[in-house]
């Protein structure tokens, strides 16, 4: 295991203070970036291999290169701090523990793409993170790291902090932009509304995740070669039935089994049964896949539909878990958070929820297995945005790996899992 990078100073109680942050090498990445050309900064990020840590995993440097260079065109940087993917809590951890790192990353990104106004769209429920961030922003502005002539470079940048109001869908980047414009958080049509082309206020916009921008600050401080030698690192939020749930930093490609071991293994006396490797939008993997590397390509290439690294949220479940109950809860979440714009998502999640609820209530039928499969098929590739597309993976993977649990529920009206455990 490499040395920690992103989590290095998170245990320091004063890390949110500008002075302590600077004394530990903070804002060196910003100074270095501002001494380079914007193109060289983007190249550095590109060469680091950094991919977006919000869930989609798009190459960060490439994303920045889509932004037009014409200085007459107004551009914006928007930080997606609306962390809400079930099982994910690394962004909240970074915001609360190292808020200046994000600010540093925002200034670097804005400089690279030529934006003079950046927005942080913070999840409303992140009250403690907001306190930390507001304080850090005020300190950074007072010290001249943000604002006119940032760090004496001649580059101007204002950062505005805005909050959501409770909506998972606002984490989808175009829905986030709608929300930031003061509207219902409903996703936009792509094309033409690719953020890099027509983003916030229809201007070219970079939307980056909190963890992504923290990586950027480290890459510019230490150089891309050093960064790559560290793994490159990623944060995994480990939760569920592990002994020590928490945020763990591991080299990209660490196996699921190794990550669970880092979290103290499964809780005592219990055996691993299954996990979501990348939040509830990913497929559910049984024990046979424990040695899969937690890497974008390795997880995506598995023979399981919807297997992905996603936001790096590993939810581990032990042998006391009823998979039908897990899938029902997952479906209900997407049903309640569906914006209702497109039919497959709005109707599909509702009918799936009803069928699963009926099964858990002891009134399931054997035909319900093909009903569930059929509804999931109807949603696959037909939804307007990734929210609806996040539902079929859990259905398909559990129908395949834990079919007997559905069958037992349908045939007997009872659950056999807790009896076995």
């Amino acid at each position, binding site marked *: 295991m490499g040395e920690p990078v992103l989590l290095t100073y998170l245990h320091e109680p004063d890390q949110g203070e500008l002075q302590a942050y600077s004394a530990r090498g903070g804002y060196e990445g910003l100074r270095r970036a501002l001494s380079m050309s914007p193109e060289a900064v983007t190249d550095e990020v590109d060469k680091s291999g950094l991919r977006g840590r919000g869930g989609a995993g798009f190459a960060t440097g490439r994303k920045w290169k889509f932004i037009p260079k014409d200085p007459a065109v107004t551009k914006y940087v928007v930080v997606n701090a609306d962390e809400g993917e079930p099982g994910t*809590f690394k962004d*909240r951890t970074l915001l609360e523990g190292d808020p200046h790192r994000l600010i540093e990353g925002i200034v670097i990104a804005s400089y690279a793409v030529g934006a003079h106004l950046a927005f942080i769209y913070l999840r409303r429920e992140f009250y403690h993170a907001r306190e930390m961030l507001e304080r850090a922003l005020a300190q950074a502005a007072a010290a001249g790291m943000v604002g006119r002539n940032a760090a004496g470079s001649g580059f101007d940048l204002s950062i*505005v902090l805005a909050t959501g109001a*409770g909506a998972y869908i606002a984490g989808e980047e175009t829905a986030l932009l709608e929300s930031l414009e003061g*509207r219902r958080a409903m996703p936009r049509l792509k094309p033409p509304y690719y953020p890099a082309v027509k983003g916030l206020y229809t201007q070219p916009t970079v939307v980056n995740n909190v963890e992504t921008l923290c990586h950027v600050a480290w890459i510019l401080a230490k150089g891309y070669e050093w960064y790559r030698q560290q793994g490159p690192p990623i944060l995994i939020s480990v*939760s569920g039935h592990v002994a020590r749930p928490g945020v763990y930093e591991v080299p990209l490609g660490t196996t699921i089994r190794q990550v669970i071991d880092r979290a103290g293994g499964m809780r005592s006396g219990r055996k691993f049964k299954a996990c979501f490797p990348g939040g509830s939008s990913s497929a559910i993997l049984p024990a046979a896949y424990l040695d899969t590397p937690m890497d974008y390509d390795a997880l995506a290439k598995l023979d399981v539909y919807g297997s992905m690294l996603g936001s790096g949220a590993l*939810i581990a479940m032990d042998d006391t878990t009823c998979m039908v109950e897990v899938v029902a809860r997952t479906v209900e979440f997407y049903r309640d958070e569906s914006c209702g714009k497109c039919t497959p998502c709005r109707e599909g999640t509702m009918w799936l929820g009803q069928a699963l609820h009926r099964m858990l209530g002891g009134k399931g039928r054997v035909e319900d297995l093909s009903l569930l499969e059929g509804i999931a098929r109807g949603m696959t590739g037909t939804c307007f945005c990734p929210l609806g597309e996040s539902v079929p993976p859990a259905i398909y993977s559990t129908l395949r790996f834990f079919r007997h649990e559905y069958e037992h529920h349908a045939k007997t009206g009872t659950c056999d899992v807790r009896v076995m455990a």
Partner: protein
Amino acid sequence: MTDGNAETRERGNAAGLSEGAKSEIRRLMAQFPQRQSALLGALFVAQNEVGFLTPDALADIAAVMGLPTSEVTSVASFYHLLFFRPRGRHVVQVCTNLSCMLNGCGRILDHLRRQLGVEVGETTSDGAFTLKTAECLAACESAPAMLVGTERFGPLTPGMVDEVLSRYRRATRSMT
């Protein structure tokens, strides 16, 4: 930052916004290239002052921001944390998503129902607490978790829930 901890004002003719709230909304509008971007912030300003989004408060926001009241109301109705009905001084949000479910949030929710004597969505008769469920609060390392007002708690045990409730009850009494 008083979401969920609002001191609900006496009803009557005071359901609209104060001048202070209106100027706070104007300050928010000035932060953005387009004024509507301040709408979510404005809705919280109103909710935290009045207690919930009354028709008068919505109309006041619309007037200050130069937006149709229908648009203000439509936007507000999209989001979970904006309320159109009175709520308790403290909103208790129990996370019921996967990691909390796997760690026994059902038991915590049952305990809260019993202790508060209300169902999910209801407010205690003394107006102190509104009980709600929440989707993943991004606090899975401390599952099962809940928010009371703006404060996060977890991993919860029934005993810890009792302590938190009595602390908030004492705070409520000392305010009145």
